[in-house]
């Protein structure tokens, strides 16, 4: 026998995700988004979800937007809900069908990191004295004011990686690291779609971005490159 976290079907990858789960979704822009896992979650059927992600999706046909459009999301925790194309978010939110918790991007990242690190709460200067900080506990340390923020610990994390081995050790490709790295640490069930599967030992001990202890399942999804963000100059 041997540890083998690699699964061969999306059904196996998604098995056991319950209604009411909190789901972390990696990615920043189009880079590092676990789109195939999002599609698989849509297929799997869990509903009444809380989604934690930097953005609230765009368009209607894919990813977070599709999941929301199907009425499967009760609440979203994010820093940048509104952007070009976030039509589903805006429809549902303005109709009162989707709760929003707006979080500063760094606080979001740190709350997730804290969730993975066993820190239940921490103080931060970010958002003190602003609308987002209103109602939060304020405390002074060494003459500066901070607010208290609590950790985010999730049931499920959906992560995209560049390379993975059977222990679940991961490497990301440049900007694909983003939220994937902290999110991988902060869920009871971390599911990874990886562009490449490699042999155990191919990733050097000093070169692993996410140690396998954080990863539960890996599925091979060699989908290629994300789309270009915009037309480029010659």
């Amino acid at each position, binding site marked *: 026998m041997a540890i083998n976290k690699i699964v061969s079907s999306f059904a196996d990858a998604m098995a056991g995700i319950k209604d009411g789960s909190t789901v972390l979704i990696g990615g920043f822009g189009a880079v590092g988004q676990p789109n195939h896992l999002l599609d698989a979650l849509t297929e799997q059927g869990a509903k009444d979800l809380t989604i934690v992600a930097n953005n609230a999706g765009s368009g209607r046909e894919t990813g977070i937007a599709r999941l929301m459009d199907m009425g499967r999301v009760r609440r979203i925790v994010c820093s940048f809900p509104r952007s070009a194309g976030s039509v589903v978010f805006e429809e549902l939110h303005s109709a009162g069908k989707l709760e929003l918790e707006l*979080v500063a991007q760094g606080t979001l990242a*740190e709350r997730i990191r804290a969730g993975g690190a066993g820190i239940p709460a921490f103080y931060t200067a970010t958002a003190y004295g602003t609308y987002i900080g209103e109602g939060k506990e304020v405390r002074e340390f060494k003459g500066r004011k901070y607010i208290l923020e609590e950790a985010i610990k999730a049931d499920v994390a959906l992560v995209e990686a560049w390379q993975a081995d059977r222990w679940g050790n991961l490497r990301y490709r440049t900007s694909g690291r983003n939220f994937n790295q902290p999110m991988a640490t902060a869920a009871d069930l971390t599911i990874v779609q990886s562009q490449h599967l490699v042999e155990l030992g191919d990733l050097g001990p000093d070169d692993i971005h996410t140690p396998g202890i954080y990863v539960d399942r890996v599925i091979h999804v060699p989908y290629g490159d994300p789309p*270009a963000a915009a037309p480029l100059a010659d």
Partner: protein
Amino acid sequence: MTATATASTPTADNIKGWSRRDMAKRLAEDIPEGWYVNLGIGIPLMVSDFVPADREVVLQSENGILGMGPLQTKRTFDPWIVNAGKQNVTLKTGASIVGHADSFAMIRGGHLDLCVLGSFEVAANGDFANWTTSLKSVPAVGGAMDLAVGAKRIWLIMDHTSKDGKPKLLETCTMPLTAPGVVKRVYTNLAVIDITARGFELVSMTPEITFEALQARTGARIHRKD
């Protein structure tokens, strides 16, 4: 100090002042070699084009890049590298990548020498408001509030007045704050203004305008440097 000496409609004299490129260039020339700098989306990002070629300044992007280079061209295309504005950018030699938690630890830990942001309003006490004009619709905040409190200094690059001539440099901000008391300097189309313990302090201004006319376009007293 009153503004009674100036025209009742301050913009009627049609002073445009510096162009956005001029503003970005002035700001770029004030960045010393070796500074670590985060440039906000939009005009702030133009600053990178004007850093003198013989001066090494290291640009940070909130999504985890330290050592960001210019926008990609078709020749340098790599869709895996994006900046905070989700544009495809290049990496300079020496660049490093971290994840989001480590990137914001860098930002919030006071390691950036400078963050340059655009803004809707700034007040004489260093408050500024750049993330949303109103809370009526759902706003998006992104990394603005983290950068605002985390960088060693915040410089704003913004128009001195709104299109209809209303001051954007104020005694007190009217829009939802991004952070209280953090702005150190403002580069506008009309002037460069420091924010110190006594409020706005003039550093330089466009030759097109008089001090009195500048004051008339500003919602709080501008002090001259001693």
